[in-house]
């Protein structure tokens, strides 16, 4: 019994830490599948979290917070698009710039507007996305295992958590079952062919980048409006990069992306839980090793030891129409 409780506990925290990773990872998926590399996920998430928390604090409404977070993230995504699509700039450089601008401006603006050392005011309950109880969760609480799983693991998350997991099949459907998705993938593999077919490469890539902005805005909102009650400085703490690692780990596919994010989230949850407690057989594992494991795993994958991660062929290359 105790084991089931502990397991549900750790899986529950896995889900909680995985959600922002998953949203950011799917965000990167749209952009990179369309041939625009994006290492600015971190910055867009951070800006979204700040904008969402600030707006939710001022208007005391989670929905307004969400809307503003998405608008700000899309705005930053459009800057990335403007630099890398319209002006054919280096996509990595642009992503680095976005991360810096977000890291600095969230602190400066936060301090200037709220005077709490870069934090936003603590949000009231109506400014947050509360926990949603699935129907019958209370009644089933005492049923062993199945009831526990239902009420302890599936129920009681915020709306954005369910949105994040529903976004996985939705993204799959968009990418692999719609005309837009086909074209989006084509523009990441062979933009010249898309251009020949009379479809605007730039407009397609812009739409992909906008999708990225929306999803990173959701990721930021989740962190500031659901997981926490407000924004604290540098709250994304490298999650954008872990999401990027997960995206590569999942070989740019939506469903594996979910599993990669859950795996990395599980490692995170486990490292918090195991802090200092020795494991059977292995002994005491340093926390730092657990924290570095997502990155190490990704490097091993990139090295080609666990399958091969092949990025979209036109990724990172600005499209120049041949004259």
């Amino acid at each position, binding site marked *: 019994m105790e084991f089931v409780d502990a397991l549900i506990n750790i899986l529950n925290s896995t889900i909680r830490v995985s959600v922002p990773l998953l949203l950011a990872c799917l965000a990167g998926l749209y952009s990179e599948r369309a041939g625009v590399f994006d290492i600015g996920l971190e910055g867009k998430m951070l800006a979204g979290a700040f904008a969402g928390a600030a707006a939710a604090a001022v208007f005391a409404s989670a929905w307004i917070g969400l809307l503003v977070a998405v608008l700000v993230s899309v705005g930053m995504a459009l800057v990335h698009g403007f*630099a890398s699509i319209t002006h054919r700039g280096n996509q990595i450089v642009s992503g680095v*710039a976005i991360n*810096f601008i977000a890291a600095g401006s969230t602190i400066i603006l936060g301090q200037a507007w709220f005077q709490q050392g870069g934090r936003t005011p603590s949000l009231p309950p109506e400014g947050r996305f509360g926990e949603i109880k699935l129907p019958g969760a209370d009644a089933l609480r005492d049923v062993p295992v199945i009831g526990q799983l239902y009420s302890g693991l599936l129920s009681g998350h915020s709306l954005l958590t369910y949105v994040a997991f529903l976004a996985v099949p939705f993204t799959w459907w968009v990418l692999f079952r719609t005309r837009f998705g086909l074209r989006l993938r084509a523009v990441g593999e062979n933009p010249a062919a898309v251009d020949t077919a009379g479809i605007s490469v730039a407009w397609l890539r812009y739409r992909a980048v906008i999708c990225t902005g929306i999803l990173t805005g959701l990721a930021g909102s989740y962190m500031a409006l659901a997981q926490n009650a407000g924004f604290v400085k540098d709250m994304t703490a490298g999650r954008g990069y872990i999401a990027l690692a997960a995206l590569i780990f999942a070989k740019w596919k939506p469903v594996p992306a979910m599993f990669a994010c859950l795996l990395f989230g599980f490692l995170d949850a486990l490292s918090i839980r195991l802090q200092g407690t020795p494991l059977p057989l292995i002994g005491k594992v340093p926390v730092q090793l657990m924290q570095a494991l997502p990155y190490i795993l990704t490097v091993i994958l990139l090295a080609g030891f666990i399958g091969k991660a092949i990025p979209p062929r036109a990724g990172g290359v600005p499209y120049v129409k041949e004259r």
Partner: protein
Amino acid sequence: MSTPYAKLPAWADYGLIPLINLLVAFAVAGLVVLLVGENPLRAAVILVEGAFGSGQGIAYTLFYATNFIFTGLAVAVAFHCGLFNIGGEGQAYIGGLGIAIVVLSFDSTLPWWVVFPLAIIASALFGALWALIPAYLQAKRGSHIVITTIMFNFIAASVMVYMLVNVLKPMGSMAPQTRQFLEGGQLPKLGWLLAEFGLKVRPSAPLNISFLLALVMAFLVWVLIWRTRLGYEIRTYGFSSKAARYAGISEPRIIIVTMLISGALAGMMALNPIMGDQHNVPLDFVSGAGFVGIAVALMGRSHPAGIVPAAILFGMLYQGGAELAFEMPNISRDMIVIIQGLVILFAGALENMFRPTIQGIFASISPGSVGITATKGERA
């Protein structure tokens, strides 16, 4: 494939366009200052005065610039090979580990002028080793170097936390850092050099001889890139990997060698804060200098003659930014992070934004300067 942009005269390409980009970046930063309710012009005056208004300010400015020269050169060398080394942060951090090993073993027995060369070698070696795996993976396995170096930044941070907390921390100490270095691990200051020019510098100013090392390295990088066979190969590979392969240049070798040099330069950055100022190895001593190197290399157009002034400019921002934080309550040092981001955006990613306009202006003034007469000649 047609070249997307016509050629401009060299002075416009290397002087005018970076200058315009920089001005736009500062103008946008000024808007942010305005947004938080301060006067941007007054902020600029405080910034420049804080950085260059006193001997002490200049010493700090050059101290920060030393870090950025090293990391800027590291990024630039990789740029010449068409590689994007975003891992300067991690390489410098691990370079600090090399220094810690050397200094902690020798600082009680040897004088600084023996320890210093050993520490240079150790920092370069450790930095280079940290770049070796990403380089190998890029060269042999084709894994994207940007991604692997990002991952290695995070792995480096974990390694260093582990080493400082569990291995290097002296017994009974709470702070995760090494013990204080003895005399042999402390580099001489350079304050007297500024005093020669009649400037007042307190002995506490951190400017030290690793600044001179940085200048030497800038010169050596120039020699390497433009005056040696290896440099020629690096540039050839960066210009066109196909042409390089056709000319018989070994692709894996050139990638790995370039990244080793780049990592070594980044690793040497650790000398300045560790041996020159702090006299111990603390957590996070790199504090973003690896990323500033990207901005510096972009602004300096990957040429040492451009990197040194660009590094001093960023040193000015760091030092002046600290003064600014004193004077203006609404502005903290994070303002520098924004400016850095804007410089990277406008001087790097959007570097071509104003090019067509400038080309248009040049073409209307003198068509010959942008190569328009040549096309006319073809037609005739």
